[in-house]
């Protein structure tokens, strides 16, 4: 789930789409897995992206309020929240993120179902 504009751009190197770190986007992912016969396959994970005040104003505030807020709120207030950080490959690291996996050896999302990620 990703809300805003231009959150993805064409990946010229590998084809398809990749995240656009330049765009102000608010996003979240969640994955879960459950098995009726094997409780050890239970897992749940969620992560969020773009949860800074500045990004949320850019994404959710009406145009008039957006201009006023961005012009009047101090930069230190606008930067408050969960800041965006990038991996070496330029993709965005979810922040915050949490998970519970019943299998002590961990799991991958290949064995469950996921909602869309941003």
């Amino acid at each position, binding site marked *: 789930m990703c809300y805003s504009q231009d959150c993805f751009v064409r990946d010229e190197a590998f084809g398809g789409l990749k995240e656009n770190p330049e765009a102000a986007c608010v996003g979240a992912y969640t994955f879960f897995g459950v098995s009726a016969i094997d409780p050890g396959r239970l897992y749940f*994970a969620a992560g969020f992206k773009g949860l800074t005040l500045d990004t949320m104003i850019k994404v959710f505030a009406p145009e008039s309020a957006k201009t006023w807020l961005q012009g009047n709120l101090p930069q230190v207030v606008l930067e408050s929240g969960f800041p965006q950080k990038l991996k070496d490959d330029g993709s965005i690291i979810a922040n915050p993120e949490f998970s519970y996996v019943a*299998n*002590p050896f*961990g799991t991958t*999302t290949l064995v469950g179902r996921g909602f869309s990620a941003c």
Partner: protein
Amino acid sequence: MLQTGKYFPGGYFFHGDVNILGFNAVADVIINPLQQLLLNVSIDPLTIAGIFTIQRSASNSALGPIVSIDVQYGLLSLIPKVKVLIAGYVNLLGMSAETQLTVDNAGYHLFMESKFLGLFQASVWVDANYGGLLSGDVSFYVKAEMKQEFFAALRAKVLLVLPFLAADP
């Protein structure tokens, strides 16, 4: 876009990096019943008008306090690997407290110090090395120190005032 192949560690996992008005805090938690217990929390150093200070140590104002506990007890390891680091210094209106604690499989180090307005100071150092336990190469060191200047300061103040009191009829 469906993401596939993302790995999540067993047990509970949390990562968060929060910025509140320019003040940063980072937390990482992994609780895995078979492999690892990890708790890593650190915050930025903070000084408020010279009245309140919180930082890594009395001499290190560039870093903030940290609590880091990493215990790895995998099925194949006979002895758990332990790494603990707790370091912090707080000063409020001249009253300060400092704690530096490191524990790992080779040794233990603890330093604690409290100061009260330059009148009272107590310090404790503990060092234990047990990494060479099998070869008999172990050591243990404890030192405690207490200084109190309160009565000396009080006496100096009284002596300063006494001549005036004696001259006053």
